[in-house]
């Protein structure tokens, strides 16, 4: 790049002269060796004061090509844009008039109104301003100069339409809306419950090895084995039995006794450890009863040193509920589908009190079976061992014992487990999801009003890239709810909604500050896959280059100065793109753009001519009388 910038903004006449001298003086060595292209940036209000600087530049015979950007509105009340004699006019240096660096969004039409330009607010015309960043590219500088030399007054208002950079906020909003639609899509999934949250997996209940429940089962098994051994010992050919085996009834009765104890203990547990439906939990007395009966829970078996200490809690991200939802949402479940699955899970984890299940005890272990075992016949029935065991009731006793234990484990998982997921927690998490979804939908609705059209394709591509980040936002919300539970569902709904609004706002601000691919803090160490080639995205560049030149663009003009622009005159657009995309963009309608050798920026620089008589070039120094002469009567 060979474009040098001479900024006269804010300088007095003497300072401006000194700055020009420092740049042009060939002896002092303060300036560059060659000045092929010089871009002068000046204040509109000081052009008169700096009038001597421009002839100085011209007369130095050092500058090959000169371009001037003048910044700020015209003098109060003046209709004319007063220019030093060698600026503008039909032979002077081309002048780009930026009456408002922050610009407006404007369509070239007489009746078109100024709209606020979304995105980062630019207040200064420094090297960071997109127009200056563009004009320092040799090829663009030359093209602008060439084009403007064809204008009758060589003065124009610049407008910009940049691929991927000019309206980052709007692009981000549009892309996020695309991602939101995916995340909030009702979907058509089956809505299965989360298996890992169901009591049988989450509860962790089991029999303590030497507890009473296990002992009763052990006794029953022992008696059963003893009977089997005796039957086996007495069995003759073909499994036929002889009469007179006196110990068998005693063992059968012992098995019956063990089953009775087991049944009674299960019944006692379910009766005395019953907790009515509601927020109430097991009382210490009830918890002791459960433990003393020989039930233990995995969560209680964690070594003491590994358990969270008082006052600390398990991090939300390690909670079962979070892990289940994280898997589902990262795996593509939408918010509504995850909510549906939570609802299905809620129904299966709902406690209804252990007392309600007591009626099943008699079905699983009928009194008749107990009586049958207690009254085992003195004479052992004939037949093979299996048949005899069955007739003695031992098979049924074993099955009943197993069923009773399955029942008590099932009840323990659902009703008493300290690690069981509660339906209240699931309701709150579902409400948090819905609150988040509501805020996201509101955001998407707002974004849909933003400029779209030709940017839709880009928004869709970027939306794909933002999707994983958006999912992290949803999970962040779930973690927040689990870490600080709301008092109830409606509160969780409201809180999540409000938090999501804040997160979205801060994400948008983060993007404005650091670019559309910048990851917000809640995304953790997520890698944004597929977002990096945006600047080189050929499709995006093509869209920008084909954007209709008279349509709404970022015009660097104050609303009050729009009347100075000639909406009827031909509007010229300097289209530019990186040489790297030249091959991909070959055959682009409308002729070849300016291929830039550096930078990746692409788009259009729109030059709207000023109305005849607005730009007036006047020879002379800073002269109040001269300035006044330029005023309209």
């Amino acid at each position, binding site marked *: 790049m060979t474009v040098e910038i001479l900024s006269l903004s804010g300088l007095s006449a003497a300072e401006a002269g000194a700055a020009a001298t420092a740049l042009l003086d060939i002896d002092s060595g303060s300036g560059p060796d060659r000045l092929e292209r010089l871009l002068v940036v000046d204040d509109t209000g000081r052009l008169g004061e700096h009038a001597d600087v421009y002839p100085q530049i011209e007369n130095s015979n050092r500058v090959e090509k000169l371009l001037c950007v003048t910044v700020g509105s015209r003098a109060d009340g003046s209709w004319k844009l007063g220019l030093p004699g060698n600026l503008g006019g039909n032979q002077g240096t081309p002048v780009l008039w930026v009456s408002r660096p922050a610009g407006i969004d404007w369509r070239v039409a007489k009746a078109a109104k100024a709209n606020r330009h979304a995105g980062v607010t630019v207040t200064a015309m420094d090297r960071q301003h997109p127009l200056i960043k563009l004009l320092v590219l040799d090829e663009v500088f030359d093209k602008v100069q060439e084009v403007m030399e064809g204008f009758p007054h060589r003065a124009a208002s610049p407008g910009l339409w940049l691929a991927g950079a000019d309206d980052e906020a709007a692009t981000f909003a549009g892309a996020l809306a695309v991602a939101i639609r995916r995340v909030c899509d009702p979907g058509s999934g089956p809505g299965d419950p989360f298996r890992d949250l169901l009591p049988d997996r989450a509860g962790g209940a089991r029999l303590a090895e030497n507890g009473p429940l296990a002992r009763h089962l052990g006794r029953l098994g022992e008696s059963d084995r003893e009977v089997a051994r005796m039957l086996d010992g007495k069995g003759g050919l073909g499994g036929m039995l002889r009469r007179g085996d006196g110990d068998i009834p005693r063992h059968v009765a012992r098995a019956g006794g063990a089953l009775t104890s087991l049944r009674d203990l299960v019944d006692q547990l379910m009766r005395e450890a019953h907790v009515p*439906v*509601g*927020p109430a939990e097991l009382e210490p007395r009830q918890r002791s009863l459960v433990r003393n009966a020989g039930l233990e829970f995995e969560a209680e078996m964690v070594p003491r040193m590994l358990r969270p200490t008082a006052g600390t809690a398990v991090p939300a991200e390690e909670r079962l509920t979070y892990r289940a939802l994280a898997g589902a949402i990262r795996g593509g479940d939408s918010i509504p589908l995850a909510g549906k699955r939570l*609802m299905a899970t*809620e*129904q299966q984890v*709902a406690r*209804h009190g252990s007392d309600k299940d007591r009626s099943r005890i008699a079905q699983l272990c009928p009194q008749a079976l107990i009586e049958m075992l207690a009254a085992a016949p003195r004479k052992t029935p004939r037949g093979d061992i299996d048949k005899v065991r069955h007739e003695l009731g031992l098979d049924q006793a074993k099955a009943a014992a197993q069923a009773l234990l399955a029942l008590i484990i099932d009840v323990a998982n659902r009703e008493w487990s300290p690690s069981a997921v509660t*339906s*209240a927690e699931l*309701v*709150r998490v*579902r*409400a948090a999801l*819905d609150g988040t979804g509501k805020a996201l939908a509101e955001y998407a609705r707002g974004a849909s009003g933003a400029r779209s059209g030709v940017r839709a394709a880009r928004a869709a591509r970027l939306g794909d890239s933002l999707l994983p980040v958006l999912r992290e936002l949803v999970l962040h919300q779930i973690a927040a709810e689990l870490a600080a539970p709301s*008092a*109830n*569902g*409606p*509160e*969780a*709904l409201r809180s999540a909604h409000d938090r999501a609004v804040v997160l979205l706002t801060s994400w948008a601000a983060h993007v404005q500050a650091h670019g559309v691919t910048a990851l917000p803090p809640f995304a953790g160490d997520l890698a944004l896959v597929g977002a990096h080639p945006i600047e080189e995205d050929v499709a995006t560049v093509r869209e920008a280059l084909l954007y209709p030149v008279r349509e709404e663009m970022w015009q660097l003009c104050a609303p009050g100065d729009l009347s100075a622009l000639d909406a009827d005159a031909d509007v010229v657009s300097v289209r530019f793109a990186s040489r790297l995309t030249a091959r991909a963009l070959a055959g682009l309608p409308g002729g070849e753009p300016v291929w830039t050798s550096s930078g990746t920026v692409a788009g259009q620089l729109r030059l709207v001519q000023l109305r005849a008589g607005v730009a007036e070039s006047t020879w002379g120094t800073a002269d109040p009388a001269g300035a006044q002469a330029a005023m309209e009567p």
Partner: protein
Amino acid sequence: MADMLRFRKFTGEKLEIAARVNDLEAPAGEFLTTRTVWLADGTPDGLADGLELRQHRPVPGDHRAAGYARLDSEILAGRLLHQVAAGREYPPELARLYGDEATSAEPYALFDPYRGESLRDVGAYLSADFDQFTAGLLSGLCWLAGAGIAHRSISPDTVLWDSFAGQVQITDFSRSAPFGIARTPLRGAEEWISPESRPDSCSGMVGPTDDVWGAVRLLYYVRSNGNPLTRRDQLADFGLAETFSGLLDKVIGPPEGRPTARELIVDGLRRPYLLPGVVDSRKSLIAGREKFLNARARKYRDGPGPPVPGGFWDDVLWWPAHREAAGPQGNPR
């Protein structure tokens, strides 16, 4: 914008008081609008900090006459509820009328601000509060029945849940009607309008079982996390049928066979009925209302006409006789 409001407070006191009015209006049920007003409390900045109320007014335009009728219903229900609650704390389960200006050409009703959010918004998250919700809703209906009023539009839009207080609030009495008058057809989503009130099958007289149809659907809506009841057999879900001792089956049938809210509490939930007995003050009400309707009919033409002599007011007294019970809900058996 400051305004002067002249109205009759629920105590009967006539007030003329400065008020700041929020010009933003929102629909309040059918043919009514609501806006917020702040009554001055005498302090210099009283208009900003004064008592906040909802002002319900008939919509302008073609439906204004219907709006008058809706407003009448709101005022009547509000006054009757105050009568029933006289000497006790006003039931929090029901929106409270603060005052009304019923007879002018620009009538309005003033209500305390509603508390809570509509069940349409939060009904899907109340399964943990279901017992409290059930008790609140049925208590509210008992109070209404005690006042001899059927709400007729119990739905997720008219019933609110205050999650801070854990309380139900029944709002929007604009379609309410006293027991014993002929049912008028109601328009709206069929899932929330009982068959006997739908335009194509409207019949019979308003009674204390009218609201139970919607209430039980609302119970299902809350218990099922926001799903509407579409089939009778769904009432068996979530143990609802068992909770109400099998009474819910009758709710789907014709109004004559339905249990009342009180019966759902006493015979269904098997809980004691806690609401106090209600003094039947309807004869004085009838006389007062007749006077009011005549006065208003004289004042403007586009409002409802005067009552028909010997007309439906006699029917209000019909209902207690019609039911075998000692009275409509309020009198414990």
